[in-house]
């Protein structure tokens, strides 16, 4: 523990302010990280509650508890809130907390903008949720908001939805600029690019993806706004526009977006697997190149979401092969994780359990992705529950498990207390089992032809749907345990050492636990 950097000595001149203003005006990267994480946790529960409504409706065939119109609103907002409210802010929160500590920087490069990019998020989601109380109800056109569903046939509140998306986009863009500038300019002396921790690497690339595609999303919703209010016809066939164009613009954003939601998780599990295998990560350099090539490829595969719109055969083939190409760098990563564990002296603490589950279950999601990438086969799978199974496998035991693993891994650094390991393991096993009960049978009903985005279904799908709903309820309830574990570790628990995990590598493990309000005010030397 000789390496502990003692920054308590100069805490007196700018410690945290007291009361609510600490959070409103803070420019401290740790405070802002905490805000992001709590906000995303709140959104996880809100989006999760909507998922519970969806699964309650689908518990049995026939109309159960909500009207089809309300069902569509639940479905749409579940997707929007999970993607833009839960997963993305959680990663930004982790970035805020961890990246400056990993690269030995005192704070983020643009601390005031950091405050702004967080505080406009609650505004955006406030606007989105307020539409439920307006005439016409909330957005009901799916999280992909295809025109003309979201223009000609949209509820009048769509304008608020557009405004909310603009604000969310602005927040992500500001956050990304901040992260890139921090990483490029504020690394400790001696930390070359190829010595940078993998979480920092994945976020650097993710931030570039965000900067490239969030403006395109902003453009898409702006075009919708103009179609709705200013008489243009970007997506309106009657005026010479084309609804298929909307899908191209949307997925030009949308496919890189799915990688935005997974790349930082790759970084997190890389750290955890090397720590708990007590071996350096296998193939660090190939990891970096794999992330970069996934990011670049993600720009040229978007139309694999549109195989059925009536593309010429050349287009189908192009998007089919490029999509399959992504499996190669992804395979490299899975191989490296397995090789890191191979012959390691592994211990199975909660973060490691979530990470191992991540590797296994994310790979299942990747494989179903490959099946969907086969253009002729996709004509059968498209818009069925098979697609729902695919993206939930990459997003729930993928992105969300990655986030949960990261939270357990760094929690002692944040709170200064170890979390309750028994409860943590209980949380893991309950989540692991119920996530599979929920999403695995969706493959079967999907292949058997059950369409997605419907409030009712044919009788032959009844049994599987009941199983799915039960799994979903268990999974939802289990996350309350997660909340309890976090609260418990804030207020009590075994005092954590600076290193927290035996042999953990990286600058964040050289500062005290809990991490002092200011760290690395004098840059550390990296050898």
């Amino acid at each position: 523990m000789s390496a502990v950097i003692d920054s308590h000595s100069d805490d007196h001149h700018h410690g945290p302010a007291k009361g609510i203003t600490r959070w409103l005006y803070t420019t401290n990267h740790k405070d802002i990280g905490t805000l992001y994480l709590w906000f995303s946790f709140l959104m996880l529960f809100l989006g999760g509650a909507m998922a519970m409504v969806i699964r309650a409706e689908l518990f049995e065939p026939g109309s159960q508890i909500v009207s089809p119109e309300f069902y569509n609103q639940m479905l749409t907002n579940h997707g929007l809130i999970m993607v833009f409210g839960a997963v993305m802010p959680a990663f930004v929160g982790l970035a805020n907390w961890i990246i400056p500590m990993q690269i030995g920087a005192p704070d983020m490069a643009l601390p005031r903008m950091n405050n702004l990019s967080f505080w406009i998020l609650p505004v955006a989601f406030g606007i989105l949720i307020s539409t439920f109380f307006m005439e016409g109800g909330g957005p009901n056109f799916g999280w992909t908001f295809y025109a003309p569903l979201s223009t000609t046939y949209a509820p009048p509140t769509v304008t608020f939805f557009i405004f909310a998306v603009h604000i969310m986009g602005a927040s992500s863009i500001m956050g990304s600029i901040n992260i890139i500038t921090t990483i490029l300019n504020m690394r400790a002396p001696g930390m070359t690019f190829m010595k940078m921790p993998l979480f920092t690497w994945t976020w650097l690339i993710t931030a570039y993806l965000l900067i490239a595609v969030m403006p395109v999303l902003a453009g898409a919703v702006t075009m919708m706004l103009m179609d709705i209010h200013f008489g243009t016809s970007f997506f309106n066939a009657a005026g010479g526009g084309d609804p298929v164009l909307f899908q191209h613009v949307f997925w030009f954003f949308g496919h890189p977006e799915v990688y935005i939601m997974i790349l930082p998780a790759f970084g997190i599990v890389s750290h955890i697997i090397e720590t708990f295998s007590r071996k350096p990560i296998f193939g660090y350099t190939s990891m970096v190149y794999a992330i970069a090539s996934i990011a670049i490829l993600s720009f040229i595969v978007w139309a694999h979401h549109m195989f059925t719109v009536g593309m010429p055969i050349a287009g189908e083939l192009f998007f089919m092969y490029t999509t399959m190409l992504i499996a190669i760098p992804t395979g490299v990563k899975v191989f490296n994780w397995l090789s890191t564990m191979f012959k390691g002296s592994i211990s199975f603490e909660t973060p490691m359990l979530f990470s191992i589950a991540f590797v296994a279950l994310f790979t299942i999601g990747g494989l179903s992705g490959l099946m969907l990438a086969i253009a002729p086969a996709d004509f059968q799978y498209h818009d069925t529950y098979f697609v729902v199974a695919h993206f939930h496998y990459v997003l729930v035991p993928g992105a969300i498990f990655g986030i949960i693993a990261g939270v357990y891994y760094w929690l002692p650094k944040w709170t200064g207390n170890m979390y309750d390991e028994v409860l943590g393991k209980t949380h893991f096993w309950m989540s692991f089992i119920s996530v599979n009960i929920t999403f695995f049978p969706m493959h079967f009903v999907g292949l058997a032809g059950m369409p997605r985005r419907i409030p009712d279904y044919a009788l032959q799908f009844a049994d599987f749907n009941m199983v799915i709903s039960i799994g979903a309820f268990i999974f939802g309830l289990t996350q309350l345990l997660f909340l309890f574990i976090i609260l418990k570790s804030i207020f009590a628990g075994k005092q954590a050492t600076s290193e927290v995990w035996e042999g953990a590598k990286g600058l964040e493990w050289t500062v005290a636990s809990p991490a002092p309000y200011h760290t690395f005010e004098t840059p550390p030397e990296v050898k």
Partner: protein
Amino acid sequence: MKAATKTNLKLVSLVLGMFCFGFALVPIYDVFCEITGLNGKVSGPTITEYDDNFNSREIKILFVTKNNENMAWNFTSEKRILDAETGTAYTVDYTFENPTDYPMVAQAIPSVSPGKGAQYFHKTECFCFEEQLLQPGEKLTMPVRFIIDPDLPDDVPVLTLGYTLFDISESHIKLQASN
């Protein structure tokens, strides 16, 4: 300038550039579809002249007319099928009738399939891309003149010219009101 400021400026210009790129996708998409003929998009009226020694061949042309959504007009073509030859000009008449008791504005949007044949379908005169106002009960006949390019690939034995008629009265009123 500080290194961080430089990075920020670069990133902000990237953001602005990508926002513009989003809008640039619209013309890029149209041009791409027009060049390749994907999506059945066809260019506006063109006059094409051929010299005498091209090889003409027989081809069937189908005419499809369709009303979008709640469009109330009667919209028909004079022929449903035409046995044609490539390189020869033909004229087909289309009839529009507004059976309602209020004036309406409509626009017909064409599409040629299969997509790979679209670029060989040259219209020399066409009512498409024009907004048409009809008074209650008014009836109108308008021609489409076209030539099929002799270069049409041999594996395209049939071409279908489809028109979908859209009711654009509402946006028309909006546009006039905002002028």
